[in-house]
């Protein structure tokens, strides 16, 4: 780490994430040395030792760029998001979790109470005979111990603080990260609010051939050996390339595996699932309501997992119905009712 105060300051932080985004940053290879040459790195818990209070002591807006990965699901993460927002000139939602909730955001199909029940009341891998649950405050002889509050709803970074830019992807491809870092280094950034990435969809860069074929049933990947040339969707495999931002080079469909949407919604798509619904409606070959229902029920048993695997927290509706909110029942009970 350089001590030259004249260099622009860079902070990297992680919240509710898996660490893959951090690995992806290192994936730029020896260009990381260039990053260190250009920036004064002031915070990067995964790679270097920094103290939080030195960030707290900084003047507002004294960090030039903060790359924040991870969603926000605890008060500690929200505290860090607010702190880094206040200290940074440019806040970047880095990677799918910060951008759209990603896999941690799938917790929005459940609640804090349900998660605590399975983790502490009825845990499968540890014993908790006294049913101990984490408390916000615990008094000990040495003083009070604090734990962060665990939220019911996982939030994306832009639902918690203002964000200037978004770098999509689970994780972002290293080439795209380097492009974004280059833009920052050269002062060549687009308008605030921009998603730094391709404007087209995965379908646009996918070499598979699209005809106008429609289908009578959806198939799981293990059910067929897909033709290597033809569009997967036209073979009945639900591929999310049509709603997903390009940037990966259509790696999955090229090897016969459908796009699952890890690069997030394409430019102009607000709700990933809504775009998928629109697209799939054009592929189903039936004008009979009953047959349509059958194709959907059999082919898409888990619409949230299918359409919102990466974007539930950032979708229009953000989560499933909370039990008891406005007197509503949980989803399962509604289905059986």
């Amino acid at each position, binding site marked *: 780490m350089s001590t030259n105060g004249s260099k622009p300051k860079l902070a990297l932080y992680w919240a509710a994430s898996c660490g893959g985004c951090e690995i992806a940053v290192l994936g730029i290879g020896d260009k990381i040395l260039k990053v260190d040459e250009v920036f004064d790195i002031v915070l990067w818990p995964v790679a270097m030792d920094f*103290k*939080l*209070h030195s960030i*707290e002591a900084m003047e507002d807006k004294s960090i030039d760029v903060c790359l924040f990965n991870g969603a926000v699901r605890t*008060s*500690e993460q*929200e*505290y860090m998001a*607010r702190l880094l927002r206040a200290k940074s000139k440019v806040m970047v939602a880095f990677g799918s979790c910060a951008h759209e909730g990603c896999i941690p955001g799938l917790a929005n199909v459940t609640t804090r109470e349900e998660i605590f029940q399975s983790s502490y009341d009825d845990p499968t891998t540890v014993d908790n005979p006294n049913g101990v649950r984490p408390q*916000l*405050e615990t008094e000990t002889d040495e*003083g009070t111990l*604090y734990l*962060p*509050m665990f*939220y*019911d*709803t996982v*939030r994306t970074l832009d639902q918690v603080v203002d964000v200037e830019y978004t770098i999509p992807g689970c994780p972002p491809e290293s080439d795209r990260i380097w492009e974004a870092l280059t833009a920052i280094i050269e002062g060549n950034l687009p308008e605030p609010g921009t998603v730094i990435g391709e404007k087209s969809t995965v379908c646009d860069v996918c070499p598979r051939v699209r005809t106008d074929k429609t289908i009578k049933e959806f198939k799981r990947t293990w059910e067929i050996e897909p033709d290597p040339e033809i569009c997967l969707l036209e073979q009945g495999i639900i591929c999310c390339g049509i709603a997903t931002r390009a940037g990966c080079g259509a790696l999955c469909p090229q090897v016969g595996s459908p796009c699952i949407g890890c690069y997030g919604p394409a430019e102009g798509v*607000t*709700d990933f*699932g*809504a*775009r998928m*619904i*629109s697209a*799939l*409606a*054009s592929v*189903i070959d*039936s*004008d009979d*309501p009953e047959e*349509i*229902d059958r194709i*959907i*029920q059999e082919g*898409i048993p*888990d*619409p*949230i997992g299918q*359409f919102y695997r990466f974007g539930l927290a950032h*979708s*229009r*509706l*953000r*989560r*499933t*119905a*909370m039990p008891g*909110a*406005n*007197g*509503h029942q*949980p*989803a399962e009970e*509604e*289905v059986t009712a």
Partner: protein
Amino acid sequence: MPDENFEPKIIGFFCNWCSYRAADMAGTARMNYEPNVRIIRVMCSGRVDPDFVMAAFAKGADGVLIAGCHPGECHYNNQNFKTMRRYALLKHTLRAIGVEEERIRLQWASAAEGAILARSIDEMVERVRELGPLNWPKQWEAPPEVEEAIKMMEAEHAEALEVTA
């Protein structure tokens, strides 16, 4: 307890060629029907992006009514068949999310069917009134204790600072 004063807010997407005219007809014929539907005219029910419906619920609508020409009578050949398939997919997804089924409805109504449209509006308003307000934005509202918990983090850090000093 159902709120006696609750008036459902229902967003209606009516196609220009049949259903909007059906609504016009219901009006000129002075038919009585519930005033709870805010009608948005679209050129075709096939224009109704599922995102419009999600947005309506996310912004506080209690129900969404999509109305279009009868299958086979679409002004744009077969776009309302697309609506039919989208609606099925949308309903399937909303069910998983936990939005009650009766809050979304697809109604075919030709330009001559003002009475049918008016009746479907009445039915839907009655059903949604029984269900009560949806108030979806409340689902993700942060509880007031959150601010306190964040302050606690600050207090904890201040304490840690004292130790290091």
